[in-house]
């Protein structure tokens, strides 16, 4: 562990605020999928940049932790770099790009491909925590609907999708039901990642601007909403990774030339690097890599 900037409290937030957030986290873990209001603070990065996740991470970090930060699955995207630097400066914790080495992982829009294990914490950045928000804009209404377990509107929406488009036309932030009770927004992860929501790790969701925290305790039952005759399907691009050859990881599509040429690569950069180091090759792997 390196020293943190002495001008700030460990992990930036004062201890009082961290306690307040931890209380919300404990409540969230006790009621899986329930959105707990919390007095989100103004952070030195803008709302929408992950202030909820940053506050949750700050409340969880100890000096012994090893932190990994990803955005779009990658450790080197600009905002992941920025958040990682923030905690290096304010908490002085060790950082890693390897999923297996991390004790706390903050993510935006992805769940790592490498299965998480007991003792790890995955922190999600959440823009709109309310899965019913685009069906009912009023918070007073949606809270009532959750309280009464009144999810008919959501099923009608999914049904209408099928009626109009032949399938449920939600590709990310695909709603789930937690332990048969609360309908929850898994944050804007691609629906490919939904099956990974059942995990050995603790999963914490922080929405800063909307002032909500929710959680999935380890091994919690998480079901993607669907119909018997239209079962949920975790889809991805129908390709293999062009760098490591993986056929089962989520892929980014990259435009590589003016003629519209494409390549597909793992969105999880750590996973892809690990496979390439293990000798796996893809369609476009350089010859000298072997």
């Amino acid at each position, binding site marked *: 562990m390196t020293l943190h900037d002495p001008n700030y409290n460990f992990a*930036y937030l004062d201890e009082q605020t961290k306690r307040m957030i931890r209380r919300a986290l404990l409540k969230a873990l006790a009621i899986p999928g329930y959105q707990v209001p919390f007095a989100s603070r103004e952070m030195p990065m803008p709302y929408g940049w992950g202030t909820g996740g940053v506050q949750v991470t700050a409340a969880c970090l100890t000096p012994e932790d090893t932190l990994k930060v990803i955005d779009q699955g990658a450790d*080197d995207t*600009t905002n992941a770099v920025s958040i990682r630097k923030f905690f290096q400066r304010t908490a002085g914790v060790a950082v890693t790009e390897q999923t297996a080495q991390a004790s706390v992982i903050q993510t935006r829009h992805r769940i790592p491909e490498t299965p998480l294990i007991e003792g790890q914490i995955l922190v999600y950045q959440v823009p709109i925590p309310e899965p019913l928000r685009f069906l009912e804009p009023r918070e007073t209404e949606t809270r009532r609907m959750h309280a009464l377990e009144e999810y008919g509107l959501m099923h009608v929406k999914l049904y209408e999708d099928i009626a109009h488009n032949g399938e449920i036309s939600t590709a990310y932030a695909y709603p789930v039901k937690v332990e048969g009770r609360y309908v929850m927004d898994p944050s804007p992860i691609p629906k490919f990642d939904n099956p990974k929501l059942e995990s050995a790790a603790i999963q914490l969701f922080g929405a800063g601007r909307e002032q909500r925290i929710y959680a999935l305790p380890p091994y919690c039952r998480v079901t993607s909403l669907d119909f018997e005759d239209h079962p949920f399907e975790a889809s991805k691009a129908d390709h293999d990774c062009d760098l490591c050859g993986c056929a089962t990881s989520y892929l980014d599509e990259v435009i590589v030339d003016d003629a519209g040429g494409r390549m597909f690569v793992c969105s999880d950069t750590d996973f892809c690097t690990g496979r390439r180091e293990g000798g796996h090759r893809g369609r476009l792997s350089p010859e000298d890599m072997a």
Partner: protein
Amino acid sequence: MYVAVKGGERAIDAAHDWLAEERRGDPAIPELSIAQIREQMALAVNRVMAEGSLYDPDLAALAIKQARGDLIEAIFLIRAYRTTLPRFGASKPLDTAAMRCDRRISATFKDAPGGQVLGPTFDYTHRLLDFALAAEGEAPVARQGDPVAGDTPRIMDFLNADGLIQQEPPSDDTPADLTREPLEFPAGRDLRLQALSRSDEGFVLGMAYSTQRGYGRNHPFVGELRIGAVEVVMDIPELGFDICIGEVTLTECETVNQFTGSKSEPAQFTRGYGLVFGQSERKAISMALVDRALRWDELGEEDVGAPAQDAEFVLAHGDNIQATGFLEHIKLPHYVDFQSELELVRRMRREAMGEMKEAAQ
């Protein structure tokens, strides 16, 4: 080769360096001092203090300098700094009746005790560009007069004494604080006023203007608008008595609005209230109008469905730091989600085209 997102760290550092250079501008031009901004951009400083919820003209001036004059960015800097400040306690309620008024006007009475004091206002200036300001000249000197002695009575109190305006029941409850507790609905008037006071000036202005144009009209008169310095008094437990810890300049606006009445209650005017840090009268008047519009329920009025009557709508969307953050975040990478939509749309198109082909055969 695949390099699109590599080098994030170097790119960020380089962008910050370039930003710092741009902020300074041409180094041949003298640099602005914090004191210059504080003294000569006072209304911008006031806005940053009001919406930043932190009364400190020097820090606000620093934020404006650092933000290159982008006031929302400056407000953001102040808000983020505010998070790091410990809270020692709460002051006694401010006594705005004891305000040392620089400006005090009433639109409802031709004259009143304490008088109409125009103060430093743009109101009756002709908006002609003053090219003399482009040349640096002598500092202008205003003529001096004697300050009015004693407190300035509130116009509202005269109406109150006659029972002509609705009474506000006094309360010793600690007001809610949305910077410490999550904002939940329904929100009481204390919370609504706090939110409005911090809300974006343009947003509150637009909301207030909409009520004037008929979306929840409430017939406002400016009963009184006053601007001046007020003492901040705090009870220090260790001392066992109250002391003045400083003073703040405030703008307070009380509006007299459309009257209500019924068979049992004789007709009475109603009120709206605005209170903002600094000289911020556009904001204070707007706030009073929106406050009044949000009171439809307690005053037994009809919900006509106007945006300014909808507390959840107004309070959830008035904060410019929340709004600008969420709006601008869509420029962050979203390619993972976009990829999943891309695949979905491609598949749906493929299926639809297949069906159309079949139908054509």
